[in-house]
């Protein structure tokens, strides 16, 4: 199967600093792929390598089977950079026309292509407005419209929600899902974890240049599945007994316990241990970790140097 993005053993070094360390990932055709990571994790560097704006120190990246160093690879890509910078003296329409010409859209189709994108981003009424006079949100919409020109097979969005209001958020989500339904692959580089959680099929979490977790949204949620117990009279001896069939040490927060069991059946044992040792269970429920919680936990563990949970 030919992947939309295929990175193999990708390394990028800036002097002694390693921005990307042995990144291997595949993005399937037609999926929305979320790329998460804290600031300085190497997300933008990865995107720039995909676009051949930055050269990899070693390793390879292919876009639909084409090496990124070939101009042809970029024929299929629509890109929205983070903090898009545009010639301020151009009107929105002139800017979009410029990009149509760069893509190579036939002159008779340019007007239609521009109209479609302006319509999708609700920019028709301001099409003649100079870009230098646009608000941040409008500029972001213009950037998204620019990325969508020519119906690219792969959309790379670097922080697409930046500057958008809640309505813009919702519209963007709808747009992404529409594009996905039309078979477009979307690579979403974002800090908006809730947005990623709602739209992405698969997610990779990057920290310090390395992928620390990759998987489908459901898969990642399942891995973070835990038993949340509210109990009174919880003691260290109870914790030691429970740890015997737990994946890792119990996390406590007041009288709330978070237990990562190896098997769901062991929840009965947890209840039994607490009750038999004189404790009182007030509530007991299975909880899934949100992407935000998972992200926070993984990145913190990685930073503290004890992440045993690699992809």
């Amino acid at each position, binding site marked *: 199967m030919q992947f939309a993005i295929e990175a193999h053993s990708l390394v990028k070094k800036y002097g002694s600093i390693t921005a990307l360390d042995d990144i291997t990932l595949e993005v399937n055709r037609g999926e929305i792929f979320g790329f998460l990571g804290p600031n300085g994790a190497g997300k933008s560097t990865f995107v720039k390598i995909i676009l051949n704006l930055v050269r990899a120190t070693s390793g390879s990246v292919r876009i639909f089977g084409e090496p990124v160093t070939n101009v042809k690879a970029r024929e299929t890509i629509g890109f929205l950079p983070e903090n898009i910078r545009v*010639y301020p003296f151009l009107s929105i329409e002139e800017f979009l026309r410029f990009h149509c010409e760069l893509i190579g859209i036939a002159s008779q189709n340019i007007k239609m292509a521009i109209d479609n994108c302006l319509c999708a981003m609700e920019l028709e009424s301001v099409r003649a407005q100079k870009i230098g006079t646009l608000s941040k949100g409008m500029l972001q919409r213009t950037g998204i419209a620019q990325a969508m020109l020519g119906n690219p097979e792969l959309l790379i969005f670097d922080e697409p929600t930046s500057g958008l209001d809640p309505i813009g958020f919702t519209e963007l989500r709808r747009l992404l899902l529409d594009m996905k339904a039309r078979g477009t692959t979307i690579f979403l580089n974002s800090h908006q974890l809730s947005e990623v959680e709602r739209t992405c099929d698969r997610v990779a979490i990057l920290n310090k240049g390395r992928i620390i977790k990759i998987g489908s949204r459901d898969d990642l949620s399942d891995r973070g599945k835990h038993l949340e117990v509210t109990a009174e009279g919880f003691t260290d001896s109870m914790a030691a007994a429970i740890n015997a069939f737990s994946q890792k040490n119990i996390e406590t927060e007041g009288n709330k316990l978070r237990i990562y069991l190896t098997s769901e059946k062991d929840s009965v044992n947890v209840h039994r241990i607490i009750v038999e040792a004189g404790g009182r269970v007030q509530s007991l429920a299975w909880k899934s970790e949100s992407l935000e919680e998972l992200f926070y936990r993984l990145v913190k563990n990685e930073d503290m140097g004890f992440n045993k949970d690699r992809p």
Partner: protein
Amino acid sequence: MKIWALTKIGLKECLRQRVVYFIFLISLLFVFMAKGCDIGTIKSENLLIGKEARQGISFGISFHGIVFWSIMLCGLLASQALTRDMDEGYASATLARPLGRDAYIAGKLLPVIIISTLNLTVLGWLFCWFFYRATGGITMQIPLSFFFMTLSLALYGLMIFCLSLFIPRQLAPLAGIVVYMISCWSSLPYSVENLKIFWTPSVTVQRLHLLLPKFGDLQCIGASILSGQQPFDAVNPLAVAGNIAVYVSVFWYVTVWVFKRREL
């Protein structure tokens, strides 16, 4: 089409810069000088310089003044065109499109050359117009001399593009002017008949004349054409053409090679 798309944007960008109009106005002063500014009487050792010779001096000063300021304009625009796009982040969004870096350079270079050539052309035609008004005649010497200067502009623009990738962009036109002036200076003992009598160029000057881009020789060719002299008596046209071809190739390939390796 892609290069032309970039060129159109570049033209708009250039025309928004006040320096273009400022330099045009300065150059215009030199055209008015050629219109018939009376420079007074000039006495040589034993003779009084005639009206025609005085007019020739005015024309010469105007020609060199216009060329110099066109070169300045070309340098100022060229030094900004590539590096500002990189610094401001415009280049990365453009280069994310299916566009080679060599095409990008061409698209950024063309507007610089077009604007500075346009400046030179407008001034050249004004020059012709005033000449017609003054003498009632039309001569092809003026447009031809200015045409030769467009070669100089193209070479100079490319040189500044190349330099701007290595040194701070504000310094690139200054460095370019130094090269241009040295080139002009080293051409003098080869091109100006009166100088040949008492200036035998040293080995250093000979080397400079041989190795530097031949801006000076081009300018002397232009000035010779303008003054009605045989331009290729003093200057070997093949050597000039060869020098320009080599330098255009070197500047182009170095610029493309460096820019392709530049991370955005």
